[in-house]
């Protein structure tokens, strides 16, 4: 599989603060990749770098084999981008928004745009500002898709939407993926439902890549172990402990398993993606344990 986005030690600094630091990752071509992390993790910064809205201070970045900002003319027609809160001209009608899209984008497919708007049953003469949040998001998505991009980048596309609008939005994205060969990179701080629509995952925390890979493999390789709190040496030596919590009698470990866990004194549970992500982001870390260990 070729690579749509490749970064190596990528960093972006605003003043003296690093918004993104030493970020190394690959987004495979044709994948639907989720970029997750808490607010302030550097998700938006990474996406802005990818679409050439800002220049990195460190490391390298390649998008569709090119360097954003250096190859702007070549690259921009191939990228569809929907920014956070899907900004549109509120005073424009839906039809005027489409005209603007057509005039600004050389690769614009007007048929695609109008068919989508029709299917969504959006009135062409309605002012964008009068549409619901979900409808506005759909208009923004339609503009991005009508460019027929090779790479679609969505920054927190569904964060402000209700569950139904969220589903309709993702439905449009998934249908577009099934119709065209397209890579999708979307950021989200909502992990629920990502498993359904994404096949790859990148976890960002404090500006760094904490984990990246195929979602099925990530879920298959992580386990929750519970056992007596006396002796976790063997387990911690063999497997990567992502999170450890201790009570007097019981230790609970979320591990990335390297091979089989044979030790009969540990009970094994499967964990879902949300719990894995939270563990990587450091929620539920037992501070007492850290103090004891040091």
């Amino acid at each position: 599989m070729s690579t749509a986005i490749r970064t190596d030690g990528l960093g972006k600094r605003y003043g003296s603060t690093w918004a993104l630091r030493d970020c190394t990752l690959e987004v495979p071509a044709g994948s639907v990749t989720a970029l997750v992390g808490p607010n302030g993790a550097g998700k938006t910064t990474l996406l802005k770098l990818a679409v050439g809205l800002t220049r990195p201070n460190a490391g390298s970045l390649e998008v569709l084999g090119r360097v954003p900002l250096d190859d702007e003319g070549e690259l921009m027609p191939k990228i569809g981008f929907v920014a956070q809160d899907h900004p549109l001209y509120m005073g424009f009608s839906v039809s005027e928004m489409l005209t603007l899209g057509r005039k600004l984008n050389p690769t614009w497919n007007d048929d695609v745009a109008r068919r989508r708007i029709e299917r969504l049953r959006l009135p062409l003469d309605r002012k964008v500002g009068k549409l619901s949040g979900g409808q506005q998001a759909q208009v923004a998505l339609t503009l991005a898709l009508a460019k027929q991009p090779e790479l679609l980048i969505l920054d927190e596309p569904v964060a402000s939407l209700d569950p139904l609008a969220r589903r309709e939005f993702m439905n449009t994205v998934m249908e577009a993926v099934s119709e065209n060969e397209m890579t999708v990179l979307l950021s989200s701080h909502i992990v629920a439902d990502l498993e359904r629509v994404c096949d790859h995952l990148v976890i960002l925390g404090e500006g760094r890549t904490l984990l990246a890979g195929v979602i099925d493999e990530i879920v298959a390789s992580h386990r929750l172990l519970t056992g007596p709190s006396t002796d976790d040496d063997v387990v911690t030596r063999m497997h990567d402990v992502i999170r450890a919590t201790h009570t007097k009698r019981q230790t609970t470990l979320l591990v990335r398993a390297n091979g089989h866990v044979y030790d009969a004194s540990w009970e094994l549970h499967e964990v879902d993606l949300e719990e894995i992500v939270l563990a990587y982001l450091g929620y539920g870390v037992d501070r007492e344990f850290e103090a004891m260990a040091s």
Partner: protein
Amino acid sequence: MIQFHLARSGVPAYLQLVQQVHQAIRLGVLKPGDQLPTVKEVVGTLTINPNTVLRAYNQLDLEGIVEGRRGVGTFVSQDLAPIPPDDDRKALRSALEKWLARARAAGLDDEAIAMLFDDTLRPPAVSKVA
């Protein structure tokens, strides 16, 4: 034509689709020559990643159960051993009911029964760690 559904069960989505095709064939809902929904149709109804559907169909293809015809669709190509006929099923169910009565008499509640059943059905959870 069958309609897929997805449960939040911890079973990967592609595997759920594969299992639903197996089941539909075993129950006689799908027969050789029948067409599976197109990738686009599945994506449209379930709002899932097309790659997941492709992966499921590829696996079924590898198993020799379905056959993709380029530009036409995916078709069932092989029958699977049917789930036991009605009579057998009745006998199995009544045996299970007797067993349940014994388990309850032994003081097991529903949760304990389910745990025991799961544990017996898929014994070594340990071996599933990749």
